[in-house]
Every structure is written in structure tokens, then in C-alpha cells.
């Protein structure tokens, strides 16, 4: 194929090679992705804001650097999409909320600054559940994103926009954030790659906080190698984030390349007893078992490990997260930025009355639910019983991980308990929605890194399933090595990447 759509099907690593070889310009491939967005985003709605002009200008700059022989990075000129929870100077940042509609940050998040410094043109900002609260992107105040595998289904959440953008070939790379699974669960249900780095491994400066002690930004891509390339751009110590870990990143690209050989000799894989079985869809479990079998055939040793306190992870999370979120969202007070709504029929309203009216009008249902829940968990009389207990359970979960990692190099489980469900199906049943994060939440509580790798399609519905690979804190290289190995082993089985089996979104040749 010679159409411009051809470029949108390539991996970021291939695009970087093509740019380095002078086979294509950044302007050409940025335009190709913008054309693709034009063609399919009406149906997918991955983007809240597209910055065609800005992206093409940056692409032009990247081309000049390539011509001068002074590229800023391997990925210089490869376009990217950014979740709308990261501050982007000069580009709207809404967090999927009406309360920030039209807000244009005067500064860049560190992740965004590093993307710019490395020369990646930013295509636009991607849709998300409001303030990252949700597992389906349906809680966006700007309407849901649709799963490119089946437009009647959810793309996962909260980062459904970023996952759908790479799935629909609207962007080769995207940035997501993961507080309880918001990178990994969307990856699982869209058949893409999502990595939650070690807590503190990627700066949170300029990431609008949902829960400070849990939030982590990370790569959303179609291949493990692309994720490693992107992780090395955005990761590493940042003095602007006091929780940033001041240690060099392990060699992630190197680990992904090693893994791609498909050899897992000497690697011990722990299957977590508590993350499987009841509550998991049969097709998800079947694909998971196939992946484990493939890894064994590739030389890995498998042990079963028990993490007995993981059964309490969901409860601990839904106390800690609302507690932190209710405190964080207190800053939306209608005074310094964002929406200001005057209460009806009140003459000369006070600041507090304006605050109350604004927060009622500006926050959606799920945000209100969690603010009230968090306020409850932190209120006197309940603090020790709920928030205090949740923090202790967090210690027990961390100890479970320590014991498990004494027996295994990595831990594996299905990423999400089910495949993508129908839009609207769980919208007014918060508890059912929360259960989507059953397997991903423990990693956030303990701060350990994790990746979701596509494991195939569930037999019963033909939709993507994912395998989660977890490693000890600061050993992010292990998720890349094992993730790349599994990806390579499965590609051999399938005769190519899973994405080749995705239905086309537009008639061939329509978008070119």
C-alpha cells in the first residue's frame, strides 16, 4: 500500500526508523494520523480536542532537525495523543469535566514537557471518565468513547480515549494514567498494550490528581517495544514531584528487545490464586491459561502463589481513593480557574454559595458519589474504622506482594475480569462498574509496575482479552521482558498481531 493510511498502521518503532531513513517526513505521517482522526473519530470519539495546526507545526520542526542531522530523540517526529488529565500549555485540559470546560493551562505537565523536548508532535487530548473516575469512559461529561472492536461497547476507562485512539490507528502512541487500572483495563478490552510504571517512576507534576498516592502516568501503545520507547522518554526523576523516585530507570527498551526473542528460560512466573476463578468470564480465563502454557513452553517456570489479602483490595481502594479524591477536588472552588456558576435567585451570592452551585453544576454523578463517600470515610467517628483500616490493609497487600515476589520474578493474572461490555450496561450500578478493576487495583495500592498484553479473543463474544504481568517496584524492565516475550509467542500463534483481526472502521480506501 502506498496510501497515507499505510503509515497509521505502523508501529512507533517502525515510524522512527522510517523517519531516520528519510522514507517519510513527520509532516506526512502527522497528516496521515490527522486524516485518520477525521475519518473515524466521529464514530469512535477518542479525542476531546484535536490540535492539527500545532501538531503539524511541531512536525515541521522535527523534519528540520532530521534534515540537519540533529534529532532530539529516537521518537523525534512521531506523533502522540495525550489523556486530557495532563496539563498542556496552550491546549485545553478538561479532565472530562464541565468544571474545567475551556480551561487552557499556562504550564506543561512534566510528562508533556518531556514529550515536547523529545520532539513528539501532540495530536490532541483524549477522552476519559470525569477526573479519571470510572472504567468505561461513560462518565465523561463530553460523551463516551466507543470501542473500535465494537462501537456499541465500552473502550474501558478511565483512559478509554487513549486506548481507543491507538486501537483505531488515530495515533501510534498515547499517554494514559492509572490509579486503579485506567491504563491496563482499557488496554485489555481494546487488545492494546498499557503500562502502569512503578509509583514515582514517572512524574505526576501537572497530572490533575485523582488520588495522589495511587496515580501513575504511563504508555498506551500497540506493541511492547513502543511502550518501552515511550516510557524511556517520559520516565525518570523530576524535582518538581516530591514523590518522584530519584533512581535511574532500568533498561526498558533493552528488556523489550530481549523479550522479543520469545525465550523465557530462567524466568519464574507466579500465577496469583486470588486473581482468577469466580467473577471472571470463561473466555478470559481460557485465553489466560493459553498464555501461561505458551510461556511455560518458552522455558518459564510456573508457580502458584497466594496473596490472601488481595480479596480486600477493592474495599481498601474504594476508601482510600474517595478520601484522597474528595480532598483533591476541593480545589475546584470557582475562584481561581474553571467554571463559576451563580446560584439561581440569590442576590449578591456569597463565595460559598457560588462554590456550592458551581460544584453541583460542574461535577457529574460519579464524581459527586466519590466526593461524598470520601468525605464520609474521613469524617470523625468513621476515620479509624474505614480510612485507617484501609491503610493497614494496604500494608498487608504490600506484604503479600513481597512474599509472592520472593517465589516468582513476575506475577500474572487476567487484566480485566470480562471483555468489553455494552455502553450503558453498568452506568447506574457503581459497584458492578468498580468490579472491573478487581485484578488491577492491588498493583496501585502497592506501587508496583504492571503491563497488560493482549491474550486473544474470547470465544463467546470475539472480543479482546488481556494478561496482566506485574513486577516488584523499580523492576519495570521485567514487565517489558516478559510482556515482549508473550507478545512474540502469541504473534507466532496468530500469524501476526491481534490488531490484524480487528474489524475495519471505514471502508477500505475511504480514508486516505
Amino acid at each position, binding site marked *: 500500500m502506498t496510501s497515507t493510511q499505510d503509515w497509521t498502521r505502523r508501529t512507533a518503532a517502525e515510524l522512527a526508523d522510517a523517519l531516520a531513513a528519510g522514507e517519510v517526513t513527520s509532516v506526512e505521517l502527522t497528516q496521515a494520523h490527522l486524516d485518520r482522526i477525521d475519518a473515524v473519530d466521529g464514530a469512535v470519539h477518542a479525542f476531546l480536542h484535536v490540535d492539527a495546526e500545532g501538531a503539524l507545526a511541531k512536525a515541521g520542526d522535527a523534519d528540520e532537525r532530521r534534515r540537519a542531522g540533529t534529532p532530539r530523540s529516537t521518537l523525534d517526529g512521531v506523533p502522540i495523543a495525550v489523556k486530557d488529565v495532563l496539563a498542556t500549555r496552550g491546549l485545553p485540559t478538561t479532565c472530562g469535566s464541565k468544571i474545567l470546560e475551556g480551561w487552557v493551562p499556562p504550564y506543561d505537565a512534566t510528562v508533556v514537557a518531556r514529550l515536547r523536548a523529545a520532539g513528539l508532535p501532540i495530536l490532541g487530548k483524549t477522552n476519559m471518565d470525569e477526573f479519571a473516575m470510572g472504567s468505561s469512559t461513560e462518565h465523561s461529561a463530553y460523551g463516551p468513547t466507543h470501542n473500535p472492536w465494537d462501537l456499541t461497547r465500552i473502550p474501558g476507562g478511565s483512559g478509554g480515549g487513549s486506548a481507543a485512539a491507538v486501537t483505531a490507528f488515530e495515533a501510534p502512541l498515547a499517554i494514559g494514567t492509572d490509579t486503579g487500572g485506567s491504563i491496563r483495563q482499557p488496554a485489555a478490552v481494546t487488545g492494546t498494550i498499557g503500562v502502569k510504571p512503578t509509583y514515582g517512576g514517572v512524574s505526576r507534576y501537572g497530572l490533575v490528581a485523582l488520588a495522589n498516592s495511587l496515580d501513575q502516568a504511563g504508555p498506551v501503545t500497540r506493541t511492547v517495544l513502543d511502550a518501552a520507547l515511550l516510557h524511556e522518554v517520559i520516565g525518570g526523576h523530576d524535582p518538581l514531584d516530591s514523590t518522584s*523516585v530519584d533512581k535511574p530507570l532500568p533498561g526498558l527498551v533493552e528488556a523489550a528487545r530481549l523479550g522479543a526473542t520469545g525465550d523465557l528460560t530462567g524466568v519464574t512466573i507466579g500465577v496469583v490464586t486470588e486473581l482468577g476463578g469466580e467473577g471472571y468470564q470463561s473466555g478470559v480465563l481460557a485465553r489466560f491459561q493459553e498464555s501461561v502454557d505458551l510461556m511455560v513452553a518458552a522455558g518459564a517456570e510456573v508457580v502458584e502463589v497466594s496473596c490472601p489479602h488481595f480479596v480486600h483490595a477493592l*474495599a481498601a481502594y474504594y476508601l482510600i481513593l474517595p478520601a484522597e479524591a474528595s480532598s483533591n477536588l476541593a480545589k475546584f472552588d470557582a*475562584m481561581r480557574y474553571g467554571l463559576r456558576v451563580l446560584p439561581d435567585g440569590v442576590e*449578591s451570592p456569597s463565595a460559598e454559595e457560588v462554590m456550592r452551585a458551581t460544584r*453541583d453544576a460542574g461535577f457529574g454523578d460519579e464524581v459527586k*458519589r466519590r466526593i461524598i463517600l470520601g468525605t464520609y470515610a474521613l469524617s470523625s467517628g468513621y476515620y479509624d474504622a*474505614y480510612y485507617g483500616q484501609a491503610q493497614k490493609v494496604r500494608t498487608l497487600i504490600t506484604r503479600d506482594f513481597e512474599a509472592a515476589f520472593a517465589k516468582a520474578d513476575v506475577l500474572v493474572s487476567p487484566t480485566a475480569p470480562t471483555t468489553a461490555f455494552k455502553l450503558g450496561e453498568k452506568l447506574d450500578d*457503581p459497584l458492578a462498574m468498580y468490579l472491573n478493576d478487581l485484578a488491577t487495583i492491588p498493583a496501585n495500592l502497592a506501587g508496583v509496575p504492571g503491563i497488560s498484553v493482549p491474550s486473544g479473543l474470547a470465544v463467546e463474544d470475539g472480543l479482546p482479552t488481556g494478561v496482566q504481568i506485574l513486577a516488584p517496584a523499580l523492576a519495570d524492565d521485567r514487565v517489558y521482558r516478559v510482556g515482549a516475550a508473550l507478545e512474540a509467542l502469541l504473534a507466532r500463534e496468530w500469524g501476526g498481531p491481534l490488531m490484524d483481526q480487528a474489524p475495519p472502521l471505514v471502508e477500505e480506501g475511504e480514508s486516505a
Partner: protein
Amino acid sequence: MPEITRDEVAHLADLARIDLSDAELDHLAPQLNVILESVASIRGVAGDDVPPTSHAIPLTNVFRDDVVVPGLTAEQALSGAPAHEQQRFAVPRILGDEQ
């Protein structure tokens, strides 16, 4: 465990400075009860001997050199404000009539 009543939700909303409508209160209270019931199991899981964890990767005494770096200009800081005047955020009245 204690049921969370509609009045209690109204009180919590008051503490959180959100004007909830009657319809929202009717809808929220039963939903919050379902959620609280599901997290209630956490009580009694950990004994007194288990220390709490607030951050997964604990760091202490994170210092940096105290050097002057460029910050936002007043214009930039005010760029998203609903209202401003004389290089300041303009807010609704903050004192009551009796004050």
C-alpha cells in the same frame, strides 16, 4: 454497620460544598449504602500490630536546593480565572451582612 441516611448524605454534601438537589439526594443515598456495605468487610481485617501505609514507595526528607527559578507571570496565573481585576483574583463577597 450504620446505614447512611438521606439526611446524612445531605450533611456530607454540605461539608463538601455541593448543592445537591432533592432528586440527587434520593438517588445517591441508596447507592452509597450499597458501596459502603461492600467495603464494610474491611473492618477487623488488620490488627493493631499492622502499621498503616500512606504511600507505597516511602520517601522521607525530599529536599532540593533553594534556588530561584522562573514561575508563572501574574497574567498567566490569572489566565483561567472566572474574574480578575488589578492583577488579583476577583471573588464573590466572602463576608455576611452582619460582618
